[in-house]
């Protein structure tokens, strides 16, 4: 066993795509944690979705054993690779709580970006030691001098501390390992004290029950020990404990400062939640370690099974997935149009997309998502208090509303200075209020805005990227509620209100939004056997109307020998298309129609 003073716990943090997972690959290789034959690029991004999208979605912990060239001793390094996308900063902050240090990766060709700043601030708030790495110096477009200066000016990181590296080619990686040993402090916590372990993640295994991932703050955990989860009160004899290499490898004990997993054998997902403290049942700790602040959902949407019978499967799937991703919320709701489903809260739109995709793939479900919304605070008339509304169709009647308040965010945008104008325009069109502007270097600026969250989630990020040729990056954090002049727009398809399409918008924009939305729906709803009117209305007042013309024919003109296979495949595709649609009244509505609101752009 490696003594505590030779343990190092650290996360790798960076802006998206700056090379965290690639650096992790090199660290795994250099420490022979993974067999060369099993090595792939970004080997820790093991989820299908991560590989497809080329981004890290979930933080991953790995235990490395490294023999330092300084003293020839073996060190135990616990690495956590974190995601870079803004939606997952909660995942980053949780990872940081299990560490004493952080490797800050900055792309030498891009420089400091919005998430670089955000993640550095998270690490500093946790009091972590930062090991700065300037990555991708192999790129011809790398500008190490400029970026070193940026780090010095903006983050007060002295250039002597920065390690120049290419995670792709391996340059500088040995220096990074030495810096980890030399600069990051060992964890503290007495192995002889009563056991306290913080659960930072978990998954469900059909044989081993709930497997929790822990960082031990104090005490030592042994094989077959009886443990207790302090918040839930559940107790069990553990089936297995071990470390991540990166697969699960059993060990006989884990002690203070170490990171590992514990197979609890518990069958109920509720008994072992992330943030709970694991302790010994026989000699329990007096207090739990401070848990996590709950992730705050910013974006809400309904998730409904395409066919009603799958509702119990969806409930089960949500429960299991939640174990692996504690950052979304869900509660049962029903919709007139979509039947029984769940209102889910997400950290952002990418998070929403990923949860939906994981539910579909990992649990074989077909889902419909309703249009995403933010959570409003509605002050009722006659002093009847305030209600939170995360579903536009649940907005109280107009005459019960004293005032509606909507969430605002502080938005930081890092951009080449040449795009200041377009971004200023984009942001103020979205009711954003400009705050200030700071030069990071002569060519790049950090702009700050305050903006209603609802304006941000629609497609601000896409617009930001398209208006800056992809160069700008953004980050945001909550900034409280402000009253606003908002109204609910209802959508009627074939005369029937479709609650899942209702939305809340600023009164001045209701008319134009209604028009754009019904126009978008007209294009998205396929022709039916009859004419289908689509209307947008505020109360009983119709503000926009379009018609989907009736289908006139759908026939394969020519069908001869060579075409039979081809035409059958086309029919199969039509059939699949129909199965992906939700029948509302007598109209078949495709999934995309419910998300039309996100694709409306700004024209």
């Amino acid at each position, binding site marked *: 066993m490696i003594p505590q003073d030779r343990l190092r716990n650290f996360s790798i943090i960076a802006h998206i795509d700056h090379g965290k997972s690639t650096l992790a690959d090199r660290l795994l290789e250099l420490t022979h944690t993974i067999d060369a034959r099993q090595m792939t690029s970004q080997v820790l991004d093991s989820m299908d979705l991560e590989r497809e999208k080329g981004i890290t979605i979930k933080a991953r912990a790995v235990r490395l054993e490294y023999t330092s060239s300084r003293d020839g001793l073996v060190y135990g390094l616990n690495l956590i690779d974190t995601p870079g996308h803004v939606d997952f900063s909660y995942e980053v902050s949780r990872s940081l709580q299990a560490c004493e240090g952080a490797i800050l990766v900055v792309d030498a060709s891009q420089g400091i970006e919005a998430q670089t700043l955000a993640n550095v601030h998270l690490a500093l708030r946790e009091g972590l030691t930062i090991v700065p790495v300037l990555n991708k110096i192999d790129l011809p477009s790398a500008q190490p001098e400029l970026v070193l200066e940026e780090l010095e000016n903006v983050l007060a990181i002295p250039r002597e501390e920065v390690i120049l590296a290419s995670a792709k080619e391996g340059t500088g990686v040995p220096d990074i390992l030495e810096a980890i040993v030399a600069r990051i402090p060992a964890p503290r916590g007495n192995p002889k004290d009563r056991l306290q372990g913080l659960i930072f993640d978990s998954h469900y295994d059909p044989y081993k029950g709930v497997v929790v991932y822990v960082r031990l703050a104090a005490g030592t955990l042994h094989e077959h020990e009886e443990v207790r989860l302090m918040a839930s009160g559940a107790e069990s004899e553990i089936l297995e404990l071990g470390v991540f290499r990166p697969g699960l490898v059993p060990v006989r004990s884990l002690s203070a400062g170490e990171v590992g997993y514990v197979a609890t054998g518990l069958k109920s997902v509720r008994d072992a939640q992330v943030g709970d403290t694991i302790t010994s049942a026989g000699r329990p700790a007096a207090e739990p370690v401070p848990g996590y602040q709950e992730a705050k959902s910013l974006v809400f949407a309904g998730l409904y099974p395409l066919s009603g019978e799958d509702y119990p499967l969806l409930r089960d799937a949500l429960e299991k997935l939640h174990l692996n991703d504690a950052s979304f919320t869900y509660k049962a709701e029903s919709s007139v149009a979509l039947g029984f489903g769940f209102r889910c809260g997400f950290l952002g739109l990418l998070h929403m997309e990923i949860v939906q995709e994981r539910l579909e793939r990992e649990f074989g479900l077909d889902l419909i998502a309703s249009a995403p919304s933010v959570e409003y605070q509605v002050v009722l008339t006659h002093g009847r208090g305030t209600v939170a509304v995360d579903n536009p169709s649940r907005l109280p009647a107009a005459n019960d509303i004293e005032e509606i308040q909507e969430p605002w965010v502080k938005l930081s945008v890092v951009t080449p200075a040449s795009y200041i104008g377009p971004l200023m325009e984009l942001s103020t069109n979205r009711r954003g209020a400009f705050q200030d502007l700071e030069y990071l270097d002569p060519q790049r600026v950090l702009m700050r805005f305050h903006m209603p969250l609802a304006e941000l989630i629609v497609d601000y990020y896409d617009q930001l990227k398209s208006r800056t040729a992809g160069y700008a990056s953004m980050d945001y954090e909550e900034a409280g509620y402000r009253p606003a002049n908002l109204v609910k727009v209802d959508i009627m398809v074939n005369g029937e209100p479709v609650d899942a399409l209702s939305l809340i918008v600023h009164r001045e924009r209701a008319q134009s939004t209604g028009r754009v939305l019904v126009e978008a729906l007209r294009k998205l709803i396929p022709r039916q056997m009859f004419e289908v009117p689509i209307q947008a209305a505020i109360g009983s007042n119709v503000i926009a109307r379009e018609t989907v013309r009736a289908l*006139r*024919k759908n026939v394969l*003109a020519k069908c001869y020998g060579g075409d*039979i296979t081809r035409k059958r495949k086309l*029919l199969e595709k039509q059939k699949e298309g129909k199965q992906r649609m939700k029948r509302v009244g007598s109209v078949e509505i495709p999934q995309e129609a419910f998300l039309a609101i996100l694709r409306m752009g700004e024209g």
Partner: protein
Amino acid sequence: MTEREPAELATGLEAASGPAPRSLYVHVPFCVSLCPYCDFVVYTGRSTRGPRSRIDAFVGALSQELELRADIVDARFGALGSVARRPLDTLYFGGGTPSLLPPASIAALVQVVRERFGLATEAEVTLEANPGPDDRGDATGFADAGVTRLSLGAQSFQDEELRTLGRRHRGAHVADAVLAARSARIASINIDLLYDVPGQTLASWTDSLERALALAPDHVSLYALTLDDPDAEGLTGELGDHLPTRSGARRWRAASRRRQDDERATAMYHHATALLAGEGWRAYEISNWARRGHESRHNLAYWWRQPYEAVGPGAHAFDGTRRRWNAARLEGYLAALQPPDGSKPILPPGSSETVDASTAAAESMILGLRLDTGVPAELMAEPALTDAFAWAKSLGFLLVDGSRVRLTTRGRLFSNELFARLI
């Protein structure tokens, strides 16, 4: 053809791996020029004329493929003359423009077919031809070669529409072609027409239709102009049965699609249906009308799911359980069958898929419903199908008489809606 329409064949639901093929398709991939809407495997320009013409090499390769395919059929069913090997009932030269081949080449190919597959005395031998003077070919020569049926790609009688479609002939040429075929004593003549053409009107369509009927053909095929994208369907890969769409054609299709109109197309179909019914034509398939006894036996074999053999690039064959096709590209085709180094010819590249029982049933139903003979009415009671049939019935798509259920004209126009629900 009535003798060939036993009820159990019309249902097509019988077990698949059955008899040896009695139909053969020959694909001739050459045209004088390329029509921008065309999805067929076609080569144009220098391939068809002058010193770089590949037609002769191609005819050689075709004969070679016929030999190799015949060897396989022999091995499977016994040599020609054995009980299981009845001679072919239909032979079809399709394209492309098979009328570009010299009659002697057609005669030579028919001879190979006769020797290796057999050809019944009453066999239907169809040749597709374009009506224009430069690609219509010599009808008498074709008749002497054994052709009994000529299928003319007239498409329209309006010169303006023909120009839009990129066709080389004029409306007036169709009459010449029909006349030549008649005087060559070709027994059965088909005229192809297209509707939903950009710029077409109900009046111009009616005019084309009436001028076609005035020529007293025996069969008409009326097709809605279909502007597909084989690349998007994934059909144009190395072993695909289609060639990639040229960028000019792609642009033409996008622009033309905007000038198509379902409402107008529907009116044209209804109008044609009424007109032809009034004159006693049998609407025996969604897009095909015939005078009694002139139904295309070759195409009926497809719709009845009978086995058929096929040769030529992009050609499809069916042996009762497996659908097989040759890759579209001519180079690979020629290289396999006429190896430049003089080595032994091999079968051309291609691919296949096996049709499982449930897919076979679905195919039979779809193909059966395309025909005016329909499918057995018992199918409507099958638990998996009742909803779809009830839905179609409520919309007036079906006609049940006695033991058969068939599509009404309206049902034909919405047939895909029904088929997608039935499979």
